[in-house]
């Protein structure tokens, strides 16, 4: 079973997405900020990371950079919500696989995940 790491400080969303991905046959790990996520990555490898951008301690950008340093091939989906800190181009340059904006279409997200993991 593939493991997805969900990183977002919006707890309700984290819960909802975790539920959705579990129902779709993924193992889900959650973290409410980038630093927590990074710690969890040291312990257990994952197959895909979905992360929000604005988070305390370590934001999405920071997490992306760190992840890519350690796991260059790791598929990484970043939610950018109209932030000035990072735009799509920059994110792609940093190694982000896909950039989505919030609110997002659920189907689009699920399809993207499938694509990046080459089937569930």
């Amino acid at each position, binding site marked *: 079973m593939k493991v997805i790491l969900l990183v977002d400080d919006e707890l*309700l969303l984290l819960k909802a997405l975790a539920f959705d991905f579990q129902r779709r046959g993924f193992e889900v790990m959650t973290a409410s900020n980038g630093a927590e996520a990074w710690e969890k990555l040291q312990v257990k490898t994952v197959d895909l990371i979905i992360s929000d951008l604005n988070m305390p301690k370590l934001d999405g950008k920071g997490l992306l950079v760190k992840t890519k340093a350690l796991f260059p091939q790791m598929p990484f989906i970043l939610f950018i919500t109209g932030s000035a800190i990072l735009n799509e181009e920059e994110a792609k340059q940093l190694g982000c696989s896909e950039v989505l904006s919030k609110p997002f279409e*659920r189907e689009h997200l699920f399809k993207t995940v499938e694509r990046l993991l080459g089937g569930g």
Partner: protein
Amino acid sequence: MRPFNFEENLPDLLPFSILINEKNQILSLGFTLEKACPGFKPGDEVFSHFTLIDPPNPALSSWCKAEFHKKAGTLEQKQNKLNLRGQFFFDSQSQLCLFVGQPQIRTLSQLADSGIGLADFEPHDLMIDFILLYQSAEASLRESQRISQLWSVIDKEQKKNPSSSIDLSPYPLIRVSELGFIKYANKASEPLLLEMGTDIGKKVPQEILSWISNLSNKSTTEKYEIQEGGKLWVFEFAPVIGQNEFLIFARDETERIRINDWMRDKEQALLRATQFANLGEMAASIVHEINSPLAVIAALSGQLRELSAERDFHPSLYQDLAKSIEDTSLRLGKIVNGIRTLSRNSEADPLVLTSVSEILEQTKELCKQRLQRAETTLLIQIEDSDLKLPCRAVQLVQALINLIYNACDAIEKNDERWIKIEVMQKVGKVHFIVTDSGKDLSPKIKQRFFEPLFTTKPAERGTGLGLGITKKIIEQHLGSIRLQDSTPHTSFIIELPSEVSVKEAKQ
């Protein structure tokens, strides 16, 4: 050798001498003295021409005596009162007495009065020169006195009628009498006089006249402003000491006022711009704040749709999901509300009695993201949950947000990160105390804290304008804001009136 004939030559040798015998007859008279003795004939009795002044002895019959020998004496010529000072010489052999003297004169007029002329003095005689010198000194003195008098007259005239230097001054200067008549006006005041519709010799406008008569303590100067034809003049009045007149110094301040107004406009425009810039700062997190709940709603709704199509769908799950969606939507609504009202320029809104809880609620919502990102806790303590105060809620919220954002920046790197807002009611006032976990600021910084562009933040973070806006908002609410002293942490205290009169509310 023949002896020198003294007796014959006596008058010439001693021009002021008298030779008498024991019968008091004048045997010889000095030739100059003779001029001073009208009607003299040799043989005349000495007392008919001269009086003995010194040694005083009215009863003296004659001075042709041995006891007068070498005595000093003063004689007075009877007619012209010419004084002679000299010495008596009694010759025992001839039994004659010779008086040799000098005239006691101080002025040439005395001399002239006595009938003696210039020609009567020997060329070597210095007496004339001395008197002349003395009189010349007097003449010089008189001359200097006259020059000094002349000068004081000129000086006085200048004081009365200001001289050309004042006339050339580029600043209008007018001298008016107590009754307002213009006594003098220099060249520079011509345009002003024209504008006032008056002239030298005429009266100043009634307005100015009323100021002159109102000049309280007459030894002070006062400033007045008038507006005539779009121009602004500032008058300074100065009383002329000792005269019932006043000097008016006028300045055309039109440009200065124009520039001041222009600057004030620019200042206000700048402040408005920064308010929006401030807004821009918040925009990023606000957008996030909107989109986040929206994402939640979308996700939960999708979930709900998905799950409800399944056979083993449990109604309670539906409840949970629906509730979450509802709550999130409401939360979103609040945020949007907050933003919407923030974007309006609400300066001119009336003061409305608003619940403090509501204000803090809105503030909390709008700062949520910032606080989360900064991992800072916000504690709110309201003494009385029903507490209300008159305000423009939107502005007040903005003021508080500024303080919170600043606090977040300030304590970013601290181990302990919290912000506390306490609200309590004091007599006639509502106090908002905003404290952060950072330590208290130094007195030096506190002093400058509210200076318009003062900031301790690095360039990319702090513009130093936020606090200015906060201050302005508080002031517009007729309140005050300051940093508290002697507190362990940085603490702002905002005092706002709990009631405002209708008039104040309108301002």
